[in-house]
């Protein structure tokens, strides 16, 4: 009889730690690691899929797992990836509709908080999801999570939009994607590292307080938007900047260099 201690960590919608508990799982026979993890899934309920885990105490007969469950509805991060894959594989419109419903309104918020007008924010939200539809085949779930991938699409469109407004050139005419391709020789292991990175990032963010999380969020907007947010948070602008630096330093420290 092998007994498994599973530490189940529930995250709220913002990825913060909600609560944690230990569940003991037993099963006859010695199990391969992957089997053990597969076994844990049904216990967690169909609507709560495991989004991250790490093996603890690998050598001991009682194996422990730390698991992180995203209670985001309707499903979790892996589910979003599956929807993008469905779009890639068979141009699945239902899958696309679900992605649109979830991400387009959030990309719009991201753009509004970045300082875009209502109309521009809506336009970028539309373009971002159209890009998801068109580039779904390029999405690699082993290298980026769905949210991270859509974030990079929104980020690049935001840069494109700012440029088109500044330089009076049509929206969509800059090749921003190329400007983020800096890796001269992506190694095969890079994918695996990236997959681990996503799980670790979630775990690290889960440890931040709500206020720290707001500061981290702030770092994704241009500096000119910081005064507004300093006002909402009711802290001086200088404090915002120093907290921002500190939050990033702390996060990187927690993630380590091979993050």
């Amino acid at each position, binding site marked *: 009889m092998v007994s498994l201690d599973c530490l189940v960590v529930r995250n709220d919608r913002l990825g913060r730690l909600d609560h944690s508990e230990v569940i003991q799982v037993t099963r006859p026979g010695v199990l391969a690691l992957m089997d053990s993890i597969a076994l844990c899934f049904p216990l967690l309920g169909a609507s709560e899929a495991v989004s991250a885990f790490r093996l603890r105490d690998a050598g001991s007969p009682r194996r422990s797992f730390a698991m992180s469950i995203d209670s985001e509805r309707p499903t979790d991060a892996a589910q979003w990836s599956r929807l993008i894959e469905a779009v890639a594989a068979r141009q699945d419109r239902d899958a696309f509709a679900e992605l649109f*419903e979830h991400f387009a309104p959030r990309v719009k918020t991201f753009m509004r908080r970045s300082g875009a007008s209502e109309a521009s924010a809506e336009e970028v*939200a539309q373009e971002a999801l159209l890009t998801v539809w068109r580039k779904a085949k390029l999405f690699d779930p082993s290298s980026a999570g769905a949210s991270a991938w859509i974030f990079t699409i929104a980020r690049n469109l935001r840069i494109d939009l700012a440029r088109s407004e500044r330089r009076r050139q049509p929206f969509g005419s800059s090749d921003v994607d190329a400007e983020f391709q800096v890796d001269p020789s992506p190694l095969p292991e890079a994918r695996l590292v990236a997959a681990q990175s*996503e799980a670790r990032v979630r775990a690290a963010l889960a440890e931040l307080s709500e206020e720290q999380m707001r500061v981290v969020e702030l770092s994704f907007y241009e500096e000119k938007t910081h005064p507004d947010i300093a006002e909402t948070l009711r802290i001086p602008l200088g404090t915002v900047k120093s907290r921002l*630096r500190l939050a990033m330093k702390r996060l990187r420290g927690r993630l380590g260099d091979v993050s």
Partner: protein
Amino acid sequence: MTVRHHPSDDLLAGFAAGTLDQGQHVAVATHLARCAQCRAWARSVEHIGGSVLAGLPPSALSSDAFSRIEARLGEAAPTVKPALPPAPGSLDDVPGLPSFVRRYPVGGWKMIGPRVYLRPIVLPDAGETRVFLLKSGPGTKMLEHTHTGTEMTCVLAGSFTHEGGHYGPGDFDLGDDTMDHRVMVDPGEDCICLVAMVGDLRLKGWIGRLMQPFVRM
């Protein structure tokens, strides 16, 4: 050779968040092209961005938002974006640049001091930061200078030494108005750096004052 001097965590985060101006972006990208460690952190920041995005409250879209986009799903994706015209003076011979930078037009080398040459890179979306290559002969002692703005330097070839340490290919150096630099290029080979500079370089001493009009570009 290992890269020893890196951009700060929050500068790298700014790169991945897409909040740097294009000149700074180019300087950080040049370091990233040589540094797997910092690339990993930049990728983590993209994951953080994903978590931030997923955690944002939704904004209401216009009522016909989905039907409008649905009508466009059948459209063929626009063909490849217009490629930038090939650079007149090529950057192909310059080691260590990320490939997108190689497509930017460049000026010719111009001498700005004894054995010191400067070559401007023309950015498609130049903000306040100017970007140029700086080539100095082996053993050159650069003028003592301080900055009125921020200066980012990434070594492409050769090496130099100043109060902050020794800088070789891939190393990144941030200078601002709080520091005085006495740069000495190491013997042996030319030192080529990519420099992104906001503000003017103020040279101390009479040679510096004499040269200032040239350095201002």
